[in-house]
């Protein structure tokens, strides 16, 4: 499967449908095969070393659908690949062909699987394979198969020594590459390579305090090393410092919330004061939302440090401010939060949903499944 700038699902690259790229002539010049045609590319079906193998055309059936207008080169390589697969051939030439097939479509997981089978069957030099996969990933860093392949080779070599530096190199080109972070976390956990990572994260946050992947990595490292109990204050102060530098940075606010969840926002000493102090210079919808979360926690824990009624009123007031003024795109959500708070902590009449007339029956809610499987 190929992947796109966001790894959304299986994915797609930006396909230049109107304005196709030229045939890759650079590749042709690099080809150095013996053959009568000088500097030209020879199809596998015409190469004498492949004459014993009958190419296997793709079986799309008589009335194909989603039929791709493959280039001649693509067809030639994959027809030959199918022939190798059919015969289960395990040879050097098969190995070489997998590289050609990968270059034409690096998302073909069947080819990658076959290449791995050949790596083992032919006892290939895995250090060379590392060099190969390094180059491929540099070229196509948003592809699932290339990263998985690298992981397999690292496992076989049982050698993670190049990994952190390699991933850092890829992240220096795209600091949020999801595959890169996934690989990095895998290496760290598998081989217990935690040293220096917090420093690395801080470097990234220096470069871009809005890098949410870096904030996530911060959480990852701390969770898997010291844990948050002993160093919570340090983290709170670090985060508040970043907030002061960039008040409209949602990542920092989310992190602050995330690390204080377990202990409870309202029971953290001095937090309400510190955040309220920020209101003049660092006002943002995130600050207001944070206060709502804090008040909600006070209500939920029935904290004796807070007057319940006053806290509820403040929370409702802020929800209204967010819904009507500061964060109107989330109006539906903030109104729901208001109703929920009112319903759970309010005294008096139960709250019905928004401004709609009361439903005829109480079970009138959309059923998003026609029937439960």
């Amino acid at each position, binding site marked *: *499967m*190929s992947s*796109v700038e*966001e790894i*959304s*699902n*299986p*994915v*797609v690259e*930006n*396909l*230049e*449908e109107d304005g*196709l*790229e030229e045939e890759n002539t650079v590749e042709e010049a690099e080809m150095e095969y013996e053959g009568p045609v000088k500097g030209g590319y020879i199809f596998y079906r015409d190469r004498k070393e492949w004459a014993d193998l009958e190419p296997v055309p*793709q*079986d799309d*059936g008589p*009335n*194909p659908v*989603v039929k*791709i*207008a*493959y*280039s001649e080169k693509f067809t030639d390589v*994959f027809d030959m690949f199918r022939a190798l697969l059919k015969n289960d051939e395990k040879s050097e030439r098969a190995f070489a062909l997998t590289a050609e097939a990968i270059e034409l*479509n690096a998302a*073909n*997981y*069947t080819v990658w699987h076959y290449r791995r089978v050949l790596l083992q069957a032919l006892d290939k030099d895995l250090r060379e394979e590392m060099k190969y996969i390094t180059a491929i990933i540099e070229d196509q860093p948003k592809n*699932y198969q290339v*990263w998985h392949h690298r*992981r397999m080779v690292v496992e076989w070599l049982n050698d993670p020594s190049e990994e952190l530096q390699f991933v850092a190199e890829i992240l220096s080109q795209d600091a*949020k590459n*999801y595959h890169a*972070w*996934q690989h990095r*976390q895998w290496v760290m956990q598998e081989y217990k390579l935690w040293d220096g990572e917090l420093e690395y994260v801080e470097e990234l946050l220096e470069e871009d305090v809005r890098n*949410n*992947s870096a904030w*996530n990595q911060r*959480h990852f490292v701390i969770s898997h090393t010291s844990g948050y109990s002993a160093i919570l204050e340090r983290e709170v102060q670090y985060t508040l410092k970043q907030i002061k530098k960039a008040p409209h940075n*949602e990542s920092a606010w*989310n992190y602050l919330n*995330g*690390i204080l*969840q377990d202990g409870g926002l309202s029971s953290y000493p001095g937090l309400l004061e510190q955040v309220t102090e920020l209101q003049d210079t660092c006002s943002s919808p995130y600050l207001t939302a944070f206060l709502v979360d804090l008040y909600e926690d006070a209500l939920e824990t029935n904290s004796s440090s807070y007057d319940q009624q006053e806290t509820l009123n403040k929370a409702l007031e802020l929800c209204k401010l967010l819904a009507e003024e500061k964060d109107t*795109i*989330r109006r*539906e*959500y903030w109104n729901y939060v208001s109703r929920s708070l*009112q319903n759970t902590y309010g005294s008096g009449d139960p709250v019905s949903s928004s401004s709609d007339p009361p439903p005829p029956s109480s079970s*009138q*809610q*959309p059923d*998003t*499944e*026609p029937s*439960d*499987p």
Partner: protein
Amino acid sequence: ITGVNDRYPQIRHLDSNKMILHIFLRPTLLREQHYHYLKKGLRHLSDAYECLDASRPWLCYWILHSLELLEEPVPAAVASDVCQFLARCQSPTGGFGGGPSQHAHLAPTYAAVNALCILGTEEAYKVINREKLLDFLYSVKQPDGSFVMHVGGEVDVRSAYCAASVASLTNIITPTLFDGTHNWILSCQNWEGGLGGVPGLEAHGGYTFCGTAALVILGKEHMLDLKALLRWVTSRQMRFEGGFQGRCNKLVDGCYSFWQAGLLPLLHRALFKEGDSTLSMSSWMFERKALQEYILLCCQNPGGGLLDKPGKSRDFYHTCYCLSGLSIAQHFGNKDLHNELILGRDENRLAPTHPVYNICPEKVARAIEHFHRLPVPVQTGPTLSAMDQS
């Protein structure tokens, strides 16, 4: 006009003629253009699609789903051709691969089953070898409850969704098939409230959708921290663009119109099942109008097809998910309690889509009804316990 430019900086990409049309002629879904783009693509694709040569069932699903949202019928002959093609993509050991003779992989398996359910004919249902499909699912099941995407492949939460989707639609869920799966998915929910691809990773719209929808299928969605998830996903709608981003502090992308906005119907139902009496009776908890505006004004290619954001190329993936998101935004509720909010002309109305499977609800119902008349197969391939001799 200045106001619109402020709200949509991307509109500067559109030429001024189009901008004026959009303001004065109400946002219009370019149905004809999208239809021709889809109709052509279902048969022929340029060599730019070589990179999707291992995803051809996806191309079938993206195009067929887009057509069903547009309420454009698929001629019987074409439908039959799709069935025969997907049959060629089916692996002898079960599941579907990205093309004829390719190894089975959960993603094209998901796509193929969905595409066949959209077609909904006896011929389509019969393509699926249920016994072998079950064997395939067991062959990719891991001891920790997760699934690899294909034999010898990578693990991430997409696989659980693909497995749960096809297994539930085709009625092949055995008592042990999803042992441990819900716990593994739950471990993907992180400090942000959303889900990452594997435990420890950043919360991401695509993976969050997959994990949540899988849990809904397994009946375990209540085990998520629903409030934290709700806060995370609602925060992903961009206040200026109106569309959704995939991750905090990243850019808007039309495809998240489905992956992210599609979570709201799932959460609505989950909260309702928990006894929440304060849910809205008229709307999902996101700004429906703003999302429709983003899709219609910023994500349409004038020649047909939809896209990520202005300046990007069209493709069938974005066409599918932008239209799916548009449908989600237009339709609240179900057949009994339905609230439609169609931005622009009535002709912009799309068919509703099922937020778990992302095919039309009637097709889900028909498939489930068909396959539930058949017995759950018995696993015949190697058993997990045989492979996991630890």
